[in-house]
């Protein structure tokens, strides 16, 4: 039986990677991801995890080493945050384009300048189009569960894509939570050995990441797009099987008191739990509001989102990142695009808030919802509003 233990979420991630029996970990420490890789380095040094730990000189090298390891058929893990994710940027595309099943946790951190180690989603949004499967989580249990699921999804013969598991820096990475850590036997039963179909092998040579002239590039990119979209079937299937085995269930779009709600709030990441408290209090005041949380960011869950908002009149989207000079927060832009051609759709109101570790309290979420309803009724000349800025 799984034990419920009080554990720092970063340490729990390391424990899950140990039970997943990762073969190679290449990582560069960066706040607030540091405790994840520190714990893994300890596990390897203490002989509790039989893996190659590569202490690289930068995140660019970390991801490059991960590519080589995954290409050789190793179960590969890394973690980063903020500027580190940015330094990896070009190699992220190579991992997905070469179909290498690397698993990475990102302890989401705001981007400089001014220098901020605190959490928001600007790092995640900057790598939106890198072709990785991307999952957002809202508490420690979800992170640990989805790290296990991520290995299974990434390495599935139908998928073979890298997976990012996003967790808010500090809000999740550094908190001690009661976490149900499964037994080794349960993990081993759920996660079959990694069998990369065409690994680097001197006996049977292959060439990876070759030159792609104009006559092949379009075909290569379309194959990649079709593959990422199709991966949703496997993701749903893995989450379903995870639910059967561990009794915790995950959906691309999660619902909270949203079924009959005329007003919906949409959040991602750890803010969702505070938002739930706000929804509860508004419900007890007789307000017709609910919450939906976007868990699967890539591939984007079009059908599930459309289904989730079909009865709503107002949809208020909170982004934790700016798209400078753009039409809305990056998440709100995508939600608008996903709903624009629908026969009926809610009015969409876009807010940006919670930047660089700025908290939004339950009271703050209530203010956002009330203001969102007002904007939906009266209209606004602005594409979006920023929440909590001092005038």
């Amino acid at each position: 039986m799984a034990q419920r233990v009080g554990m720092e979420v970063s340490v729990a991630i390391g424990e899950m990677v140990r039970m997943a029996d990762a073969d190679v970990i290449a990582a560069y420490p960066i706040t607030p991801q540091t405790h994840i890789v520190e714990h893994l380095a300890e596990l390897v040094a203490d002989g509790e995890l039989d893996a190659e730990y590569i202490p690289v000189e930068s995140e660019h090298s970390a991801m490059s080493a991960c590519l080589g390891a995954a290409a050789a058929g190793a179960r590969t893990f890394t973690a980063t945050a903020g500027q580190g994710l940015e330094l990896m940027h070009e190699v992220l595309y190579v991992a997905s384009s070469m179909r290498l099943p690397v698993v990475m946790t990102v302890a989401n951190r705001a981007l400089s300048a001014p220098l901020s180690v605190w959490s928001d989603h600007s790092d995640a949004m900057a790598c939106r189009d890198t072709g990785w499967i991307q999952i957002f989580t809202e508490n420690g249990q979800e992170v640990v569960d989805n790290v296990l699921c991520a290995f299974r999804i990434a390495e599935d013969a139908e998928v073979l894509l890298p997976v990012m598991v996003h967790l808010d820096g500090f809000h999740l990475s550094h908190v001690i939570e009661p976490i149900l850590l499964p037994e080794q036997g349960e993990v081993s039963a759920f996660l079959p050995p990694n069998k990369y179909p065409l690994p680097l092998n001197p006996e049977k040579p292959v060439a990876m990441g070759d030159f792609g002239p104009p006559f092949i590039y379009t075909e290569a990119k379309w194959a990649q797009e079709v593959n990422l979209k199709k991966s949703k079937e496997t993701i749903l299937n893995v989450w379903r099987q995870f639910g059967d085995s561990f009794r915790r269930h995950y959906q691309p779009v999660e619902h909270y008191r949203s079924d009959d709600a005329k007003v919906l709030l949409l959040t991602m990441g750890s803010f969702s739990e505070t938002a739930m408290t706000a929804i509860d209090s508004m419900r007890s005041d007789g307000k017709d509001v609910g919450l939906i949380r976007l868990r699967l960011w890539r591939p984007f869950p079009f059908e599930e989102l459309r289904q989730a908002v079909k009865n709503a009149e107002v949809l208020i989207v909170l982004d934790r990142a700016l798209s400078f000079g753009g039409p809305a927060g990056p998440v709100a832009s995508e939600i608008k695009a996903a709903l624009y051609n629908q026969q009926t759709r809610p009015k969409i109101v876009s807010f940006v808030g919670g930047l660089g570790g700025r908290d939004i309290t339950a009271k703050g979420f209530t203010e956002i919802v009330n203001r969102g309803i007002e904007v939906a009724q009266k209209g606004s000349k602005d594409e979006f509003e920023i929440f909590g800025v001092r005038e």
Partner: protein
Amino acid sequence: MAKRENELTWRELEIGVIATEPGNASQYRTGDWRSQKPVYLFERCIKCGMCQLFCPEGCVQQNAEGYFEADLYYCKGCGICARECPTMVITMEEEKE
């Protein structure tokens, strides 16, 4: 040999466009890049092979009469052979197309 790479559909690509057949770079028609082609005056040729030695593409071979000649499927028209030929056999001519 299966289909040439420029005939493959997206469904037929190997995962991640991994190349599983060795030597498939030989299918790549680098001759497409050429704007000038080498033209030979073989009566001056002493068959020294300097052009073959200097060709960066490695596409110069001896023909049946023993003269050295570039394979235009690969020749990029760089003109190095014309420059190095000690007896000035080779001149570079503009491609017409």
